[in-house]
């Protein structure tokens, strides 16, 4: 480990400096661990994981059963777009107070559901249990069941106390909630078409993918959960195939759908020219649809050509630049390293919040010898290593942006609040432009 960098003892195993460690000597990065107390982790909580997966369901009422903070900080924070209802962009909370903590919040929750049913006539309600509800022991399962019986609508409990694990557990809890929702339709006859899993329609990305599929003649049955509605989700069991985009949040759901409803799945990715191309081709192959296949080949060949020509015009702007990547999951980090490579940019610092062992192995193979790899990094480490390795741009979340700026480093938003689509061929152009917007701004000339 480099001498100039001050690192917490307990964090040392979570950092790998390739220059200091030969490959194959058995030294591995420590990951899939609890965050270190006091280390200023960038991670969120179980509730957050469940909320982000379910939130894009546009006509659902998402009731956060807990104190106001949990609702306030997650109110409409995702850039998920809707073609229909806008209900999901509201925040509903039981806003628990001191007396509710003492006497329990069940009655308040039941009354809240009563009021909502009376006023809004909902078809679908999710009830999230936060930390406090986990501790005071409200039986939200019972409250939801009673409400379902009373009103004949779906009221689904999402028990996600923040302390009960990591964000990934929240994803799983959300997937279970979806399974529970669609269970009554498990015997739906199969028809032509696919479900898109794990795309949240951030900046309309699901629409882009859907338009590609429609273009090659593959109907989309249901989308999970970008731009989804109660009705569209209930159609899910009738698809022939699931395509899984965000593996971290949705592989579990895909497995459940395969086991319980016999829908096979394949993993796909729409980041970058090559991933987008092979995903479309693969989907057509998996469906055994010759016509779609030939359309996919023609379509992707044409679009790849255009995207590559576009990228070429920007290459001189990126010469000699170095990137730092700090994102949520391993898959995203890997695809960013590869995208940067296509742009002629070397990645010198890579970190993820929740990457897994194999992700890090691949990252290690992908990057050059002078790269630092970090699991669950804190701001102090990011700062030290970005400066040490001379990164010119950081790709990360909102919290990391001001740090990069303070260090005089450019920044590209790759988070759920972004307003530019990064998927598909459009995404390639957007990403390239985004990187260049910041990387080649004149302001850096005055502060470095």
């Amino acid at each position, binding site marked *: 480990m480099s001498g100039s960098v*001050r690192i*917490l003892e*307990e964090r040392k195993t979570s950092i790998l400096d390739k220059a200091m460690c030969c490959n194959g000597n058995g030294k591995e990065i420590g990951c899939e661990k609890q965050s270190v*107390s*006091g*280390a*200023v*982790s960038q991670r*969120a909580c*179980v*509730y*957050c994981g469940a909320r982000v997966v379910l939130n894009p369901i546009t006509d659902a009422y998402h009731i956060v059963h807990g*104190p*106001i*903070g*949990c609702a*306030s*900080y997650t*109110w409409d924070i995702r850039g998920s777009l809707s073609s229909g209802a806008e209900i999901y962009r*509201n*925040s*509903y*909370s039981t*806003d628990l*107070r001191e007396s*509710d*903590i003492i006497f329990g919040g069940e009655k308040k*929750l039941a009354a*809240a559901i*009563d*009021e*909502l049913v009376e006023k809004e006539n909902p078809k679908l309600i999710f009830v999230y249990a936060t*930390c*406090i509800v986990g501790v005071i022991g409200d039986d939200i399962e019972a409250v939801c069941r009673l409400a379902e019986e009373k009103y004949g609508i779906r009221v689904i409990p999402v028990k996600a106390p*923040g*302390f*009960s*694990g990591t964000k990934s557990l929240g994803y799983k809890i959300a997937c279970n909630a979806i399974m529970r929702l669609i269970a009554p339709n498990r015997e739906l006859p199969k028809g032509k078409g696919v479900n898109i899993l794990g795309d949240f329609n951030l900046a309309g990305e699901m629409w882009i993918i859907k338009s590609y599929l429609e*273009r090659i003649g593959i109907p989309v049955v249901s989308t999970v959960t970008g731009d989804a509605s109660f009705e569209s989700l209930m159609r899910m069991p009738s698809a022939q195939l699931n395509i899984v985009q965000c*593996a971290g949040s949705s592989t579990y759901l895909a497995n459940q759908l395969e086991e319980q409803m016999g829908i096979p799945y394949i*993993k*796909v990715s729409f980041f970058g020219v090559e991933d987008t191309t*092979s*995903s479309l081709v693969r989907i057509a*192959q998996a469906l055994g649809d010759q016509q779609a*296949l*030939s359309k996919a080949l023609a379509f992707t060949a044409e679009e790849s050509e255009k995207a590559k020509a576009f990228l070429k015009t920007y290459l001189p702007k990126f010469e000699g630049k170095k990137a730092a990547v700090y994102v949520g999951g391993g898959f995203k980090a*890997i695809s960013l390293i590869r995208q940067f490579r296509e742009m002629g940019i070397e990645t010198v610092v890579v970190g993820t919040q929740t990457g897994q062992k*194999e992700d890090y192995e*691949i990252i290690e193979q*992908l990057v050059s010898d002078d790269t630092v790899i970090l699991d669950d990094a804190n701001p*102090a480490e990011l*700062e030290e290593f970005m400066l040490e390795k001379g990164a010119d741009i950081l790709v990360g979340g*909102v*919290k990391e*942006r*001001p*740090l990069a700026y*303070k260090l*005089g480093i450019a920044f590209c938003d790759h988070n759920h609040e972004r307003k530019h689509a990064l998927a598909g061929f459009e995404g390639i152009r957007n990403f390239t432009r985004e990187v260049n917007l910041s990387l080649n701004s004149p302001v850096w000339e005055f502060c470095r």
Partner: protein
Amino acid sequence: MGANLVNLNVNPCKMCMPMGAVSAFYGLKGCMTILHGSQGCATYIRRHMATHYNEPVDVASSSLTEEGTVFGGETNLIRGIENLISLYSPEIIGVATTCLAETIGEDVGAIIRKFYDAHPDAKVKIINASSAGYAGTQYEGFFRVLRAVVEQTPMDTNPSQSVNIIAPMLSPADFRQLKKLLESMGLSYILLPDLSENLDGIHEKHYKRIKSGGTPLGEIARMAGAKYTIELSRFISEDDSPAQYLNEQFGVPFERLAMPAGIRDTDALIEKLVELGGRKTPELMRERGRYIDAMIDSHKYCALGRAAVFGEPDFVYSVIRLCCENGVIPVLAATGSVCPALRPALEEEIRKCADRQLVEKTVILDDCDFDMIESVSRELGVNVMIGSSDGRRAAHRLGVDLVRCAFPIHDRVGGQRVRMIGYGGSLNLLDQIANILLGNQEERFRGEIYDSFFETARHTGQAKKPEGTLQTIAQRTASHPCYTCGGGKYARMHLPVAPKCNIQCNYCVRKYDCPNESRPGVTTQVLTPEEALEKYKLVKKQVENLTVIGIAGPGDALANFEQTRDTLRLIREYDPDVTFCLSTNGLMLPLYAQELVDLGVSHVTVTINAVDVEIGAKIYKYVDYMGTRYTGVAAASILLGNQLAGLRYLTEHGIICKVNTVVLRGINEEHIEEVIKKVRDLGAYISNIMQMIPVAGSAFENMELVSNREISEIRNKCSVDLKQMYHCRQCRADAIGTLDNDVSIEFRGGCGTGEEQAALPVKKYAVASKSGMLVDQHFGHADTFYIYESDGTTARFVEKRQVNHYCTGKEDCLDDKQSKMDLILSTVADCSGVLALRIGNAPLEKLESKGIKAVTTYDRIENAVKQAASQ
């Protein structure tokens, strides 16, 4: 509760206590904060603050887990404090509890004592505050920390001439203004907290992760000996008031004043400071004068204001008073905190202000949410909102502007530089409010006056078309993709039933079989009227929102009038609702115009490139009319005469006409405006000025194009005369779908692009892949294999196999390493090879013994499979 729903908060107008706690701790020098609770709280608060302040915000968490929740978080918290010290070397550590820590009953005081026992040399000062999220809002959390700070700092009671200033949650810029004011008045003061620097840092060569600003601990210790305390909060409870504590414990006299926004509350603070020995500088008095001058300048605009002010009680109180002083009527005062004292404090103030403009209804709410704020604002006719950016969705739905001047501001930059206190800050806020009101008026007055007077006059006038037709044509226009801006919602279908053309334009070549080309004049096949009906039926079923049938060639709709007429009749019988649209060069219009009206065509496009026959002669090679071929000026004259007469006939009969004009470099580019003026006079509805598409084989094949920018300049010029179409896609003659998404390829015959025939024998491969895109998984870790077929030149995905589906029935088989390997082997038994990121020696041997080749690689699946198959 001031909400529409009793048990449900809909769109919160507040945050939680730890948020306020973290903000207050940021105003102490050398302080780092740790939240005792689960990880998410710190992350959410950091994200919220980072986007408002555009500053790195470091807040630690004790990251309590299930175990900590059951057995107590002592170990976590002590470890967290140790780690903070080694990462940040802070002088102060603030420990704020969260819901979780409070509910499981953590004794944070005792844990801190244990920490000191274990670290007798520790120099850090630890201050803890109880801030359960459910016990209040960020407003109370902020003061609770300030109270804890004065309670837990060892005090120096030596009397001094200093004045304590306890400040509420203000922006860093306002903190700087406050300090400047105090300094200019020559007072010795201690400001708690001091957020002037820490959340609005400067750009430095070397970044410091602990900021250098904030109230130093040594200063805080001297607060007990100060001669007076001014607390800039009217509403915080005595229990949370630092001034109250300093008075009770050390006898420091105090007064609680309002946040100094607006003339009266700023004056009050300054008078108090004078009383305490400060002096008003001439500059300060000039600032005051300037503010009053500005108040007068804006007063008439302000009098039109009907404001909704929302936020923390102190903020709402002072901003409401500022509004009242300026004649902006604050019809709604709303706070998300529980604060019954707000109403009596503001009721009379607001009443008096409202009475001046005879406004009857005003509302004051506490403990309310945005759902309520929105509905009350709608009822009260609010025209400006003042508060944080959390009000933006309500403001958007209400169609009013929002002055963003409170935390948090997430959708604009400059949250850290909001200024609203003192004379200067008040002036800034006043200007923003007045400008919104002025902007409202400037933007709307023309339209409003037009609508209420001019439109009425027209409706009561004589020249009126039958109500019924007008309605339907208006509706049809609204659902016609070419006539509505953007046009993305509705789909149209062009039926290629008209192959022949009766004129030859120099820019055109008509082709029938080019599926990849998209421009007018192109189609893959020509349909008979009967085929057209069948195709319409088919497409109607599959394309949502198909509202329009168009006949756009590939020749000219009227040069093939029989086909056009028969097609439209057949479709009308099948579907009485669909809109008919047709495009023509206009040569035959005088002859068929009445028939078009009778057929129910509602929209007609006429391409008119020139209204001067000399220019027309350069554009048209020939015109075939009534059995004779004309050329030159004669051809252009016949065409033009018929176009204009036809156009007039159609518009007089209520048909919506679009005029297409192709801009041709060096021929008609200077002439377009004239064309547009002429067609406007004849009643055209919209003009579509288009780029020429250079077509190989046409006379203008090599003509230099007019740039898009020039086109858009021409359109802008012409838009004065006639509505312009900006979204034309120059569609094919057999286009189907929305303008942006042509799906006609789906409905054309196949193009014979079959699979390539395999050259080598096809072999099967099993791929271990986690991502599904790459060979990126250990062979032994795989619970799924992607099965591919390849002949070395192509790779075809066949299926995905789940390893456990090959389980032979033993329940415990997955627990046993050996059995899992057997399972994997049986999963891939029929393959020629397996591809994996890594593979152990034992499985490698097993595979080889079964004749299965193992390849370790890290590559894209398709590449790796092809490579394996070609070896």
